[in-house]
């Protein structure tokens, strides 16, 4: 088996996957991510970041040491990175916890409608299958010993 995704109407019928996200000091929460092979890193939208990252409203968007600017299809936006865990559940393997840097997007008028993105920092470790004809989206973890 594998991790199933879903073509989701809230994301203009694009490929999405449901994950659990957690940061130190906060309980895990479910977040639906747009599967984005064009994104270098995994990113939380302002509304999802506000829901899962404790203290999101108090982040300093001018002086945080882990603040940077990124350019995407929608233009420039500011992000702050924090260590967090993204959990995907595989029917056969169990929980797969990816622990790494997650980007939090600055809340602005332009950014608030952005989706959360599952980027290549995570996707590169999976075999991703997307077939609209078969209504199939799946992620299969490629274990180190089995990689080509």
């Amino acid at each position, binding site marked *: 088996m594998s991790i199933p995704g*879903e073509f*989701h*109407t*809230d994301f*203009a019928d694009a490929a999405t996957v*449901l994950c659990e996200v957690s940061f130190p000091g906060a309980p895990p*929460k*479910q*977040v*639906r991510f747009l599967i984005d092979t064009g994104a270098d890193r995994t990113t939380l939208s302002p*509304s*999802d970041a*506000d*829901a*899962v990252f404790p203290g999101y*409203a108090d982040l300093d968007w001018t002086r945080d040491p882990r603040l940077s600017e990124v350019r995407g299809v929608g233009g420039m936006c500011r992000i702050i990175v924090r260590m967090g865990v993204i959990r995907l*559940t595989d*029917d056969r*393997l*169990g*929980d*797969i*916890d*990816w*622990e*790494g*840097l997650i980007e939090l997007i600055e*809340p602005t*008028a332009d950014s*608030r*409608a952005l989706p959360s993105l599952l980027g290549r*920092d*995570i996707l*590169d*470790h999976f075999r991703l299958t997307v077939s609209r004809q078969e209504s199939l989206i799946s992620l299969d*973890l490629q*274990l*180190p010993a089995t990689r080509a």
Partner: protein
Amino acid sequence: MKFKAGEATIEIRPLGEAEAAERKVSDAEFAANERKLSAIRKDALREHYEEFVIVSDWGKNVRYYPTEEAFIEAIWADDCRAAAHAYLVEFPKNLIV
């Protein structure tokens, strides 16, 4: 099992049958709530296209704001943040249906 994955790490933790079943129920509940919110939001946006809409508490609370300023203020107000993951906001002008 734990291994390095670029700058990150990946850990696999097998699930017991009970835990796996519980996870399925929880995901199904989340997806059902998502579908409910999506339907409510689309109705709200069709009827109030020029306004700004916040749906919270998994669809129990739908609020409309006549201006962008009022909408932004409401999004970041403490009472709205408390709704945390259950709230969903949209900016009708940018909505793609």
